[in-house]
């Protein structure tokens, strides 16, 4: 816990960054996993309730992920401004390509929900969701690349600029991407297990359990690869979170195992709790490593407006809850229709 109290009293920013980033990563993880599932389903032909739910919820999930992502984007600028801006400038229009990639991916998700696309053949349906998936993987890779370049030594920046490079090559980028893609599979498995809880059959849940377990395995493999590459030194404030991540990983694995062995209720509960804590803990480890390696700005403590933000945060949460309750009260328990 010292991660948020030991850094010149400005840990509040870091706490918000960790929480909002974890929320963003969970949502975008669901998007990646759902797009991958929809693509594989289209390749294999036919349909299933999980693929249908994935296609149905993907546009909302992406919208929510992008909205949630704006918060950490702001906080990174507050905490690591010079480094974040420098990396963004160095990657230049290659970095800016994430915007059209996201727009294209977003529209493809809407297209994938239409009756017209549903009537298409396997190849064309797979192309739609596969292209969206490729766009999101590109965005994920680019953000990791940006994160890595921002943490690099200034000499690396100068060489990067001098050579006019648009790509920052570092083995840890691929390793980090593997970790996040593994976690994405786990986030998707949990999300899909909830979205299909009234319609899914035991086979569907077993598959989701396997996907979740596979994702956790891949994520662990990615962490081992980073450790072997010598880039995994976690500073003292991050060790508590690393331990928590390990515990959450184990709990999530138990939950997915329960799904595989047809204990749906227990499996969903354990996997959900484990995955949420895992995302928060991994985000905290990530920030602890970054805050220890590079300078960060504590000069903004006391900036005006924090109480306005906290007030509006409370009002916004209340408004969202009120909307949800209002809608729920009028819809009752009927299953949601496709939009």
């Amino acid at each position, binding site marked *: 816990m010292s991660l948020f109290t030991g850094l010149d009293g400005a840990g509040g920013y870091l706490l918000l960054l960790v929480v909002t980033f974890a929320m963003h990563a969970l949502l975008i993880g669901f998007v990646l996993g759902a797009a991958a599932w929809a693509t594989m389903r289209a390749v294999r032909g036919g349909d299933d309730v999980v693929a249908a739910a994935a296609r149905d919820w993907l546009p*909302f999930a992406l919208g929510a992920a992008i909205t949630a992502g704006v918060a950490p984007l*702001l906080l990174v600028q507050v905490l690591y*401004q010079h480094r974040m801006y420098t990396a963004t*400038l160095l990657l230049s*229009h290659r970095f800016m390509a994430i*915007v059209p990639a996201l*727009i294209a991916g977003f529209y493809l998700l809407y297209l994938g929900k239409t009756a017209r696309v549903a009537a298409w053949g396997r190849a064309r349906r797979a192309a739609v969701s596969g292209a969206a998936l490729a766009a999101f993987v590109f965005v994920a890779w680019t953000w990791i690349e940006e994160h890595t370049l921002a943490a690099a030594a200034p000499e690396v920046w100068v060489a990067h600029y001098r050579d006019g490079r648009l790509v920052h090559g570092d083995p840890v980028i691929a390793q980090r991407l593997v970790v996040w893609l593994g976690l994405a599979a786990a986030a998707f498995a949990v999300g899909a297990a909830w979205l299909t809880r009234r319609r899914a059959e035991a086979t569907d849940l077993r598959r989701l359990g396997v996907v979740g377990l596979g994702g956790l395995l891949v994520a662990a493999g990615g962490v081992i690869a980073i450790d072997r590459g010598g880039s995994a030194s976690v500073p003292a404030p991050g060790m508590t979170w690393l331990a928590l991540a390990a515990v959450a990983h184990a709990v999530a694995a138990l939950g997915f195992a329960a799904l595989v062995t047809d204990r749906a209720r227990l499996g969903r509960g354990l996997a959900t709790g484990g995955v949420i804590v895992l995302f928060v803990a991994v985000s905290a480890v990530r920030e602890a490593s970054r805050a220890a390696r590079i300078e960060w700005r504590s000069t903004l403590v006391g900036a005006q407006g924090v109480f306005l933000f906290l007030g509006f945060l409370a009002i*916004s949460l209340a408004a969202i809850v009120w*909307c949800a309750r*209002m809608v729920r009260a009028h819809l009752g328990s009927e299953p949601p229709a496709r939009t």
Partner: protein
Amino acid sequence: MEPTAYPVNDFGPAMRGMVIGAVGILHVFLAQFAIGGGFVMTYFQWLAGRGVPDARRFLDSFFTYLVLISFVTGAMTGVAMWLTTIQVGPRTIGLMVDEFHWIWATEWCCFTVEIVAGYMFLRFGARLPDRVRLRLLAIYSLASFGSLFWVNGILSWQLTPGAWVGSGDVWAGFFNPSFWPSLLYRTAVASTLGALAAIAIINAMDLDRARKHALIARAARLLVPMAAMPLLGLWFVAVIPADSRAWLTGGSVAMSMFLALAAGASLLLGAYAVVGIWWRRMFVSGATAALLLALAFGATAAGEFVREGARKPYTIRQVLFSNAIAPGEVARLRRDGSVTGDPYPLRDAGRYPTEQLALGARVVRLQCLACHTMKGANALVHLGGGWSIEQLRLNIAKLQQTKAFMPPFAGPASEVEAVAQLIRWEASGAPRQWPVSDDPAVLAQIAGWLDAAGTSATPPQVRKP
């Protein structure tokens, strides 16, 4: 050593202002459409609750467009604005984030509510009663207007930071002199865009002409705020600094023309709404509505150009010049050199036959590329290539007097001479051989001009009655 300078990217023949302008205009148009769309939706839902025919049918059609355009491209161009601003002016956006990050975080709360309420309406709206639909849309509208409210304070602060400059008080900067006229003007624009888009979409609906006409007449009511736009525009012009006002009213022909374009396009739209839609009760076809929307886009583009241009020679008035150099830094850079602390080498260093020309290129990269290119848009070669070397030296050294919307040159005499030689060399076709100019008498003369010009911006002579 930790570099403090930022790397500078070259956008080829496009100057940086064009890059941010293109993204900004598109985003502002879409964002204001989203806000105005919320007004339209809430109004039509209220009508639907009162039993107005086809109102609910229109809503379901309109909202699909709103989501597909505003939630996707509108939201993404918002992210693009942030990232593009980093590309073209990292120091400017950095200062804005430093000062207003909690305001931005508050705006994010509003945006989140807007997205959640919007998606709930999209997903469940068809199965909800009118009362609940109205509440959802009212929350959507309120949240989207809240988003505009908070961002407007930050954007208007750039031109009129008000008492913040002296006190550093965020609220003095937020509720700055141009806050209210700017907010009300943007609200009127949003309502107009929402109404015009609604009219275009009503035309695409499968209804007979009479029923379409009835809906169009309802939608046209949201054009009413347009009547206030000329007054709001005058209010805005009245509260901006005198020198900025001078650019708009003849001091800069380009800005005056864009202001005239924005005002003219708005006037045409308003005249059509009053005479055509209300008075003559004319039917507005889809093609006409599309044309009116295009006109509104033109007015938005011209208005944004004027808003951006009126800040010159600053990007944040009295705090950062257009090239992101602070007024207080000019004297130090004159003494130490502007590129001494810049660790980033030239990517095309081998192109320059002398060290002096390479120095000139680094100075141009730091001080000029925010608004100029060497040979593309607003090119230095086109502006100064025909001047004599003496003219070049004088005009660069006394830059803020050469043109009052230019910032002062922030470097020593040797850098002025390096830039002058570079422009001459480029204008001569970049020959392989070029003499070094290091005559002490010339440098002394330039230093005298720099001293005479001073380190401050020069306000233009504003004619007084």
